[in-house]
């Protein structure tokens, strides 16, 4: 770009007070070389382009489903991940110090952990006060003296750091039980390098992937049984967890099965994963669950998330957990003042990177200091409390009364409180609403065990706050993240310009792993809800179209058709009471004359059970549960579909034509979703189970609509209209005309929808597919004989093969009823429901929940 002004002048122009930024300038007032290169590239692109690309980043993150919160939160608190296009840049020289400091700290914590749960020499020798350990809820007495097979106990460690105005980094807090954020850091890098590759061009930014290779190796290395390739799982509390995105992202990226507590069970002193092939032994658990939730038998007794008996398997040495149970004892702000002594004792070294100045109130002098200097300190409890309550409070933010209350609390339980110095944060340039502004930043660094030491991720997760001054930054209270660039010193690997990473499946596992039962069940239900949504949408559209085209109630026949269709709509979608009221009441007559209000509810009201909006919610939820099986493209379709529907739903007025249009759009998206699924399915078995759910749902729908609409003979005109509606609702009109080239006749319609083996919407075809899918499911016992679902579907298949349209259309008895048709439909329905039940019982086994037994009352 010609005529480009100097970076120095550019920064002066955009951030008038830029010289106060020690991130940007050296003490001599020269702009740092790394930032000069960065802003030179930045300038080359221009602000408009940057803003456009930033929007692309946000869209990309959203499409990838990156969120820190609850995706399906009913209260709608869905906070997407935000990424600042200006990274945090750390020079090679600074990094060398940080790296050594973090490795040292991880090493220290590993030794500390082994000491606390072992000989406790540090307490015995008075280096660490006993209260600090014994009164911390993270000290799990059941974990004492457990011999972990691995030499190194700590596997993953994260540290939150901030840079003071003197340029030094200080450690603010430590994460040792189930650190989060490394997945987000990876996703940030992925987004930055795909959308803003130019910014990397003048700098040698180090790659993140070696860290994840080390993580893989570390997890393998702690396996108790070293003979075979260990079975590793990631244990998540579930989709409601705030960092669930990361759990599923890591599962995909590392190729490790994601499980919830009830996917696992303890039997014979081993941990087992319930899969559709039966139980599979688990050797290593990467947990994303807090210590006490992991075992409801020995730890938190009301936890429904954990695995009863897990701790005993650890005790027997038959499973390794990263990080080991009990490691939250290190997440203890009160330890900070004692770490330098501990480091001298255990490592004979001084701390390279200091902890933030901390006063533990368990000591009288320190407590007095904290009370006297309350406004100048951040008061932090020594442990994190339950979600929703704050651990850290800025003393300056308290009123006199609040301060007095806090002081009383501190005096009552001094051991539980610390006062921490407020760091004068250095500010870092940030892109805020199209301008460069200064913000405080908090850097979370990550380390993983490597051989007998640790290796740091050459990068980090940096977060800045929304507003200019704040001492407490956390994801839960909001914030923007930054990619963190560590500049290469030339000896190490650098970031290639184009980052070659997929959002899922980048490791090919040689070992074949069975599908967890829970996942199979989710896939099955994703299939069922997908087709339920499509079927109901089509039926609603057909019924609305019929009502629209027959506005004049003059024709008695049209009225008869209308009644039957309206009732069928309610029965087929289960949106009761709907149109199923007593025909003789005035209420029913009104409903019949103006069904639009009911249609509106059925279409848009999320609280209307059986309605489209509710089905959509269920669909999205079921798909979210299996999101690690979906490609980014499929996920984007689901996301857009949801948004489009939300927009349509919130329109102030709905005309029949626009309602039908909304359904058309919905169905188009659903088919785009299905098409992508087929293409991106990673394993045939996963796709087969999803499709099994779809085919089962479709079969049940066809049976139900035939039962509702064709139970008895009607006037010729009515019957014609009903047949037309069934064909429309199943999208079979064109095929009918093409196949039979004739007017609508019941036997031919039944031939097409029930018996035609070559027509993908017919019962015969669907049941044959179900038969095929169930035959691919693993069999217990003898493999030569048919499994129960196979036998049931063979029976259904045979019944259909032996029927024909003419026989089925026969009327029997005095009433004008299609008895043979009804009988066959009832039987088929029975066989399908039985198949569903047997599949559930055999492969999902997921209905059992766990419960605490009453405990003995001591009298």
């Amino acid at each position, binding site marked *: 770009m010609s005529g480009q002004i100097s970076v120095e002048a550019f920064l002066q122009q955009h951030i008038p007070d830029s010289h106060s930024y020690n991130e940007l300038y050296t003490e001599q007032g020269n702009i740092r070389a790394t930032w000069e290169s960065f802003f030179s590239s930045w300038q080359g692109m221009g602000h408009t382009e940057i803003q456009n690309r930033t929007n692309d980043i946000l869209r990309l993150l959203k499409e990838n489903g990156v969120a820190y919160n609850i995706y399906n939160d009913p209260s709608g608190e869905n906070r997407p991940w935000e990424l600042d296009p200006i990274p945090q840049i750390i020079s090679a020289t600074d990094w060398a110090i940080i790296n050594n400091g973090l490795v040292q700290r991880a090493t220290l914590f590993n030794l500390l952990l082994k000491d606390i749960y072992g000989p406790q020499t540090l307490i015995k020798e008075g280096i660490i006060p006993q209260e600090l350990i014994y009164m911390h809820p993270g000290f799990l007495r059941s974990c004492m003296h457990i011999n972990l097979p691995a030499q190194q106990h700590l596997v993953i460690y994260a540290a939150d750091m901030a840079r003071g105005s003197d340029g030094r980094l200080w450690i603010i807090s430590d994460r040792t039980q189930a650190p989060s954020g490394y997945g987000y850091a990876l996703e940030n890098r992925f987004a930055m390098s795909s959308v803003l590759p130019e910014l990397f061009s003048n700098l040698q930014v180090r790659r993140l992937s070696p860290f994840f290779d080390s993580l893989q190796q570390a997890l393998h290395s702690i396996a108790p049984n070293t003979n075979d390739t260990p079975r590793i799982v990631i244990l998540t509390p579930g989709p409601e967890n705030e960092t669930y995105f990361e759990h599923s992202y890591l599962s995909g990226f590392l190729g490790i099965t994601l499980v919830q507590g009830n996917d696992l069970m303890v039997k014979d*002193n081993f941990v087992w994963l319930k899969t559709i092939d039966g139980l599979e032994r688990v050797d290593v658990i990467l947990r994303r669950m807090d210590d006490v939730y992991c075992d409801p038998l020995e730890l938190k007794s009301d936890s429904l998330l954990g695995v009863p*008996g897990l701790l005993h398997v650890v005790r*027997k040495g038959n499973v390794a957990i990263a990080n080991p149970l009990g490691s939250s004892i290190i997440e203890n702000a009160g330890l900070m003042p004692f770490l330098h002594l501990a480091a001298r004792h255990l490592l004979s070294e001084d701390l390279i990177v200091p902890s933030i100045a901390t006063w533990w109130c368990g000591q009288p002098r320190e407590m007095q200091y904290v009370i006297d200097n309350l406004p100048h300190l951040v008061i932090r409890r020594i442990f994190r409390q339950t979600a929703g309550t704050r651990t850290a409070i800025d003393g300056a933010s308290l009123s006199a009364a609040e301060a007095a209350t806090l002081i009383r609390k501190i005096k009552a339980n001094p051991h539980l409180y610390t006062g921490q110095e407020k760091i004068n944060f250095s500010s870092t340039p940030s892109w805020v609403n199209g301008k460069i502004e200064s913000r405080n930043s908090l850097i979370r660094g990550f380390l993983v065990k490597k051989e007998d030491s640790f290796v740091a991720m050459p990068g980090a997760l940096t977060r800045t706050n929304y507003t200019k001054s704040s001492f407490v930054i956390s994801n839960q209270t909001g914030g923007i993240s930054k990619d963190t660039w560590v500049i290469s010193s030339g000896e190490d690997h650098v970031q290639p310009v184009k980052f070659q990473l997929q959002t899922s499946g980048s490791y090919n596992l040689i070992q074949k792993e069975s599908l967890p039962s829970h996942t199979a069940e989710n896939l099955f239900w994703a299939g069922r809800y997908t087709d339920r949504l499509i079927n109901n949408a089509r039926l609603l559209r057909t019924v609305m179209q019929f009502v629209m085209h027959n506005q004049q109630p003059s024709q008695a026949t049209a009225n008869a058709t209308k009644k039957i269709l309206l009732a069928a709509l309610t029965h087929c979608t289960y949106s009761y009471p709907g149109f199923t009221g007593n025909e003789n009441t005035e209420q029913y007559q009104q409903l019949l004359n103006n069904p639009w209000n009911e249609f509106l509810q059925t279409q848009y009201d999320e609280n209307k059970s059986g309605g489209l909006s509710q089905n959509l919610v269920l669909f999205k939820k079921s798909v979210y549960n299996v999101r690690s099986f979906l490609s980014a493209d499929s996920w984007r379709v689901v996301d857009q579909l949801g948004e489009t529907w939300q927009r349509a739903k919130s329109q102030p007025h709905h005309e029949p034509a626009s309602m039908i249009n909304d359904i058309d759009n919905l169905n188009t998206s659903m088919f785009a979703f299905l098409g992508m699924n087929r293409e991106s399915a990673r394993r045939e078995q996963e796709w087969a189970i999803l499709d099994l759910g779809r085919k089962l749902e479709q079969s049940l729908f066809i049976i139900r609509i035939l039962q509702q609409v064709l139970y008895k003979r009607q006037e010729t005109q009515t019957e014609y209209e009903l047949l037309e509606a069934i064909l429309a609702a199943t999208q079979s009109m064109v095929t009918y005309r093409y196949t039979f080239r004739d007017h609508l006749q019941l036997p031919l319609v039944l031939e097409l929808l029930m018996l035609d083996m070559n027509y993908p919407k017919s019962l015969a075809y669907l049941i044959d597919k179900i038969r095929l899918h169930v035959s691919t499911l693993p069999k217990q016992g003898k493999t030569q004989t048919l499994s129960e679902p196979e036998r049931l579907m063979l029976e259904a298949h045979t019944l259909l093969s032996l029927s024909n349209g003419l026989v089925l259309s026969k009327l029997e008895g005095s009433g004008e009823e299609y008895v043979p048709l009804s009988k066959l439909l009832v039987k088929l329905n029975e066989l399908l429901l039985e198949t569903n039940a047997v599949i559930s019982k055999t492969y999902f086994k997921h209905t059992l*929940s*766990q*419960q605490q*037994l009453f405990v*003995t009352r001591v*009298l």
Partner: protein
Amino acid sequence: MLYSIKHTTTYTYQETVPLCHNLATLAPRDTPSQICRSFSLDISPVAGIVDEYTDFFGNRVFYFVVEQEHEMLSVTTSSIVERKTPEWKLTAKNLQSWESVRDLLQSSTGKYMHEKQFVFPADITVATEAIQQYAAQSFTPQRPLMEAAGDLMQRIYTDFTYTPGFTTVSTPLSVVMGERKGVCQDFAHLGIACMQSMGLAARYISGYLESIPPPGKEKLTGSDASHAWFSVFIPEMGWVDFDPTNNKLPDEQYIVIGWGRNYFDIVPLRGVIMSSDLHQLSIAVDVKRLTGSRE
């Protein structure tokens, strides 16, 4: 004295349960005044896994898993325990004031580490202001700890009404304090909370009482079930037991199972079942004096 103890816990489920994991802390441990001669654990249906280990406090814990479908779980323990009444030699040394014991514990680092852990209140024994004030009345300046603790025991016995059914295992002490009602577990917790609020070490003892009293002696409260009391650390004497439910220094009629900071460290039997249906619990405890002691 030689005792035979039989303790049966039966769970009846409404529906078949395929799997249950349990922890039993029911085996009497050896103490200076007690020897466990034999212990056996019978589980019906047969447990697939039975493992014994020692917990943080040195108690014997049995982990077992019933891995077959069952509608009823029955756990019976049979123990033979030889127990004698502790003999406390009262000397000038152990007449030391409660303040000196408090300071000794507070200032020590390595030596009294084991005892000191029982100074820190845990969850249910965190004292409210009312409890603190209640405790303070027994701890007048320079009073010997042994005397003060005995006074506290007597006051709990007098001021509180033994009322089965009023509290549950998780009723907070503030309610017990406010209503002045509870059972032995509550009174033991209250005693511990009081001691800890004064900076002293106290622990929770789980055990049994002789169910059939010797002729002429009154039957003690809590003898038909598991019983609980508290114990106080007095340097030179060691751990001295106090039973506030019966206002008694536990003697040979008291059999100790083990101890912890509170009930939740030493729950006699706990379990997690795979079922969401209701279940019922019934307990039978029988503590018999065996005629003809072996010695």
